[in-house]
């Protein structure tokens, strides 16, 4: 699996310059709009999207077919992509948080740091769910078709979140929720999202076991 991960990292090297430019753009955007929370959200999204780029590169040259002739099993192919996704999500989150802190330092924000942490954790949980829904679809039908479904996933998941927030407001839960409770809820969301990732991984393994090249 280490070799496959290295391959993905080498292959993503060519988009690194574009990503530095994107990060610079987000930083300036957040600085001028005085909105630090936008930065982590966009870095987490941008880095997570790289998993689709990586899968797309592999698909373009049928790398999986070749990989299976090496001392690599079908499960390794899936495992590598999930680990790669978590690494990308983690990198995006760390850069996002650091950027968030830096922008906060330059422009003191109206939101407290705890609120910002909750919002970052919520974004992580949402992207864990979105991409974990996507990955089995990618293994089943390929990147291009699954990319179209990404929008559907976003709309569905953000729809659920919007409904939840509306319901919270209607029931006046916002006033009852204290900061520690919100952090607890965000962590609970992360735990649920991790379980969802595991279920998604198992489904992807089932799909790849039946796949033909």
């Amino acid at each position, binding site marked *: 699996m280490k070799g496959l991960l290295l391959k993905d990292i080498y292959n993503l090297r060519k988009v690194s310059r574009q990503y530095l430019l994107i990060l610079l753009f987000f930083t300036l955007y957040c600085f001028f709009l005085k909105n630090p929370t936008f930065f982590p959200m966009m870095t987490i999204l941008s880095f997570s999207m790289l998993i689709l780029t990586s899968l797309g590169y592999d698909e373009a040259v049928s790398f999986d077919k070749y990989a*299976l002739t090496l001392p690599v099993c079908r499960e390794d192919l899936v495992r590598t992509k999930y680990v790669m996704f978590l690494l990308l999500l983690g990198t995006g989150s760390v850069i996002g948080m650091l950027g968030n802190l830096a922008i906060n330092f330059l422009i003191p924000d109206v939101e407290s740091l705890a609120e910002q942490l909750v919002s970052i954790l919520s974004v992580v949980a949402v992207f864990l769910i979105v991409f974990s829904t996507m990955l089995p679809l990618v293994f089943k039908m390929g990147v291009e078709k699954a990319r179209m479904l990404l929008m559907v996933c976003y709309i569905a998941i953000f729809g659920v979140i919007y409904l939840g927030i509306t319901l919270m407001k209607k029931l006046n839960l916002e006033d009852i929720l204290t900061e520690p409770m919100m952090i607890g809820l965000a962590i609970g969301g992360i735990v649920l999202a991790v379980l969802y990732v595991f279920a998604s991984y198992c489904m992807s393994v089932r799909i790849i076991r039946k796949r033909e090249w």
Partner: protein
Amino acid sequence: MDYAIEVKGLTKKYNGFTLDHVSFQIPTGSIVGFIGENGAGKSTTIKAILDLIQRDSGEVQLFGKKDGAQDKELKEDISVIFDECYFPDGLRVLDVNQMMKQIYRHWEPATFLEYCRRFDLPDKRPVKEFSRGMKVKLSIAVGLSHKAKLIILDDACGSLDPIVRNEILDIFMEFIQEEDHTVFLSSHITSDIEKICDYILLIHKGRLLFFENKDALLYDYGVVRCSEEQYREINPELIVGVQKNRFEVEVLVNNRHILDERPHDYVIDQASIEDILLYVVKCNL
């Protein structure tokens, strides 16, 4: 006798094509040429051996192990070289070296870089800038750099120029000097097969037509160039295929020595592997 590959009753059905109960055994220490026209089932057979497709029935053993292609340990000893390169475009030779170092336990960086140098593959240019031939050479360099015991080639030499192809065939001849090394070579280039193979495996429309010793084939098979009348006098059991034109009849026979023993006034030439492929396939249309 030990076998590197054993295939028994291999069947795979697609819409419009069936690989039909294919069985053969590839002896360890041999070079076996796998021939057949486009769509005959060569790649399907190789994919089934490598577990890249799910077979409908039959059994495949690699080095005596059932479904060996599912065994990571066993795949350390196998190299597969396809007709295309499957390395992602952004990778360079040095990246492939680092990647394979992590994948193969017996990866030999020096051997790999030496083959890359021998094949004129630039270290620092991405694969996307390589020609098709260079990409195949990269796959061959990988295949020869991890102490494999079995090399499977799926029409890999087709995109190489004759000089490089010749060099690669010589490398395979060197490789086969170790008695436990085996090469299974699927190719359209019958001259390559004729040059290096010990056995010929011929497949047509998903069915195995024969698996023969190459020297015996070349020694026994012949092309008789005769008249229509002379053709009718040839024992039908000897006839494998016939091609008629306005001036003469060309007959592929499976034992030219029997005809040679009798007095005759027609010409009998030694048949090449290409002749055998053409006549046998036409006869079985």
